[in-house]
């Protein structure tokens, strides 16, 4: 009899283990960048031909960096949340990082795009998308070849970073920002960092 309790106990333990394991999100990989300075970059700004942007321009402010692209379906899902966030106007700027606007689009055969056309085409598409869906961004930096994305450890667009006044990354969220994530995680963190 004793032995059956033992087997039953072992089985129950296995069930608990598997239940926990199955409910973890394998996409949620902890970013080693949290607590580290935001990697430097200098990129062209969408819609302002003579301007560039980098993280050091944002020093002294708490800000969000949101990685997006017009081909990214989940970005469409989170976009209203960001637009709403920017309209509520608590003054926290969101900088957009447009990630591989053309190259990341599986529907485009890059071999057919002439090299000198790539940037203008990407700019036009990105601007068109913001016009259609609303523009919550202070600025959008154009990461045409995805190199800056690599420095930020981007592996699934959209991704959102919370960066503090000293330019340290305080949080990274992979996947679309839901109203819940915004209200329960991002907003409290931003409020605390702004103190």
């Amino acid at each position: 009899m004793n032995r059956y309790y033992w087997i039953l106990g072992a089985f129950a333990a296995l069930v608990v283990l598997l239940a926990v394991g199955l409910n973890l999100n394998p996409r949620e990989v902890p970013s080693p960048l949290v607590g580290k300075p935001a990697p430097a970059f200098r990129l062209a700004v969408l819609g302002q031909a003579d301007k560039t942007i980098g993280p050091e321009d944002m020093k002294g402010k708490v800000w969000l960096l949101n990685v997006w692209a017009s081909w990214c379906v989940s970005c469409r899902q989170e976009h209203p949340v960001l637009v709403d966030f920017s309209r509520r106007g608590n003054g926290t700027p969101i900088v957009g990082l447009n990630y591989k606007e053309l190259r990341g689009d599986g529907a485009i055969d890059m071999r057919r795009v002439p090299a000198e056309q790539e940037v203008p085409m990407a700019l036009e598409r990105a601007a068109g998308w913001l016009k259609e869906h609303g523009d919550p961004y202070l600025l959008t930096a154009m990461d045409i070849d995805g190199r800056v994305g690599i420095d930020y450890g981007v592996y699934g667009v959209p991704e959102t970073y919370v960066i503090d006044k000293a330019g340290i990354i305080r949080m990274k969220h992979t996947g679309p920002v839901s109203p819940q994530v915004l209200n329960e995680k991002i907003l409290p963190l931003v409020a605390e960092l702004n103190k």
Partner: protein
Amino acid sequence: MIIVRTLVFALGLLSTVVFASATYEAAIADDPVAEKRLQALSKELRCLVCQNETIADSNAELAVDLRREIRGMIRDGRSDNEILDFMVTRYGDFVLYRPPVKGITLLLWAGPILLLLIGILAMRSYLKRRAVEVAVADKPLSADEARRAEALLNEADPK
């Protein structure tokens, strides 16, 4: 008929595999040493998009970009360790197929050995208990019991 169709399908699949690796080999041809290093390194790295594939195996966009990045770093004369560090600072230990031994990964590394030890201990205690049981059961028969057994055997096997 179905068998023939299956065979044709299998051959078709096979040919795409051969074709795909052929185009990949073509890219490798120009610098064998560097490409060998690229191959070895990309087999150590996990593609974060399709998490059970290495960067060498994956055709995800990110894997293609990362291979290009590794190629560039090899060309710049960076060491294997520098290249792996580059990946870890961006994507974390998770990007390594052989994560380093440290606090958080201890269970991962020691787990199998631990399970083996538990198994050995459980088996030892079981064998010990069984030895006692067998010893008890194997006690030689008393003269009386032997006579009874004999009688029973003769009875069961009348000749």
